């Protein structure tokens, strides 16, 4: 589990570089709440606390959850999210090794649906931000839920690249026109590309170390590219190109770190390919026709539901049979 945290570091460093230190504060908050809830639940369930905390799985959940939050989200978002992740999605289902759904995604989806406004206050990349939010200002914002005097949310937040595409297409512009905006870099959103690269580097290192298997990331990114390509060829005006899809939002993070959660995913190699492909396809469907700009979390949860069935039908043939 600790190796997963090491692999997340390049991406987190890139994130901090592009969007400020808010994300580090979110990670710390989420980790703190995760440890708190985990210890509480272990005590309630009469299990050895130190042994399970040493596993670092709660911290991994916290970091993955925090990476999905806007950098200046108020502190109680992390609290509510961790409560649902650790207490409900993990321990009430049986604890480590028994959760049906990916805990980080459960927490994220709960706060996303319950607190839509707080969850959509995404910041400008630092390089193009009109106002600079420093570390202390960020800390104050997170802990109090209020911005420092003189700032307004409208001034410092912007729609995410995916959101921009969605609203542009809905209002009749083509994607090519939308891409002229400053929020876009070469491929995906400005800044987001490097963050995705960071996560991808970490993910590939994890595959090399055999911590995760190659099937899920390959199938997920592959299906996103294939389906994105089909959409792009059919209608480039309203469908982003495949690489744009891959480098926007949480596809890379999801492919290497979220969909690869062994407990809630499939176990057989073929099952993992189907699982990854399913997550990729559902994400694109939600992005294109659903109500949310990024569908990775929902896609992962839906595929978690299907995982036992997929496992059952993709059992490898036993030797001699």
């Amino acid at each position: 589990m600790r190796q997963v945290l090491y692999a997340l570091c390049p991406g987190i460093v890139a994130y901090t570089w592009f969007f400020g230190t808010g994300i580090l504060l979110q990670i710390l908050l989420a980790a703190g709440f995760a440890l708190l809830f985990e210890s509480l639940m272990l005590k309630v369930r009469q299990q050895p606390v130190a042994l399970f905390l040493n596993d670092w799985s709660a911290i991994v959940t916290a970091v993955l959850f925090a990476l999905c939050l806007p950098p200046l989200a108020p502190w109680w978002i992390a609290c509510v999210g961790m409560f649902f992740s650790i207490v409900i999605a993990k321990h009430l289902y049986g604890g480590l090794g028994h959760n049906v759904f990916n805990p980080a995604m459960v927490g994220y989806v709960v706060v996303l649906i319950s607190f839509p406004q707080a969850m959509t206050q995404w910041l400008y990349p630092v390089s193009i931000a009109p106002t600079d939010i420093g570390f202390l200002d960020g800390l104050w914002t997170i802990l109090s839920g209020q911005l420092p005097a003189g700032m307004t949310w409208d001034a410092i937040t912007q729609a995410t690249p995916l959101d921009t595409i969605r609203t542009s297409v809905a209002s009749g512009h083509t994607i090519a026109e939308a891409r002229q905006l400053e929020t876009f870099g070469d491929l995906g959103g400005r800044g987001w590309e490097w963050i995705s690269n960071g996560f991808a580097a970490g993910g590939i290192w994890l595959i090399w170390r055999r911590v995760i298997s190659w099937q899920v990331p390959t199938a997920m990114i592959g299906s996103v590219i294939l389906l994105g390509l089909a959409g792009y060829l059919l209608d480039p005006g309203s469908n982003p190109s495949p690489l744009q899809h891959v480098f926007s939002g949480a596809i890379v993070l999801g492919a290497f770190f979220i969909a690869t959660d062994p407990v809630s995913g499939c176990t057989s190699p073929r099952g993992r390919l189907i699982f990854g492909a399913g997550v990729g396809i559902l994400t694109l469907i939600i992005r294109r026709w659903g109500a949310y700009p990024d569908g990775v979390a929902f896609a992962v949860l839906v595929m978690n539901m299907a995982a036992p069935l997929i496992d059952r039908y993709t059992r490898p043939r036993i030797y001699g049979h």
Partner: protein
Amino acid sequence: MSFAIFSIPLLGTACGLGLGWAARRLRAETDPIVNRIDRLLPQTQCGQCNFTGCRPYAEAIAAGQAELNQCPPGGEAGIRALANLLGREPLPLNPENGLEKPAAVAVIDELACIGCTLCIEACPVDAILGATKQMHTVIAAECTGCELCLPPCPVDCIVMEVPQPAMDRRRRPGPALAAGGP
């Protein structure tokens, strides 16, 4: 608004009909539950469960008229197996029906046997060989340990013995369960 009021019940009805059809057409072929329960019972036909045999007890469990925990020869393992099959909570063995004892076989003391055939008539699985005024003996491989032959014997020449299990039939303990449980 009216569309919602209209469409939800319609959707519900459609799903219900679909499920009902699936329950009939796509039903998996399984043994009737009574047979599956009966296969888990030890077939001693001893009557300790307060039914006349294993089959009537199985039928009563299937009909919900008896609890799972009335069979001492089946023991805790049998109760767990029944609980697994029926999806119910396993209960501890009901002491009113008897206590779990190690599997024993009946042995007739041949010096005392008078050849009265009362035990032969009592044995539910015909495991006793003999005839009137001839020596009676229990076929050990077929004795289920039900002890129904003990009361009728007028000279009390039958005892229950626990046989020493062969090397390849010894029960070995399982690994200790972990901190996190199963």
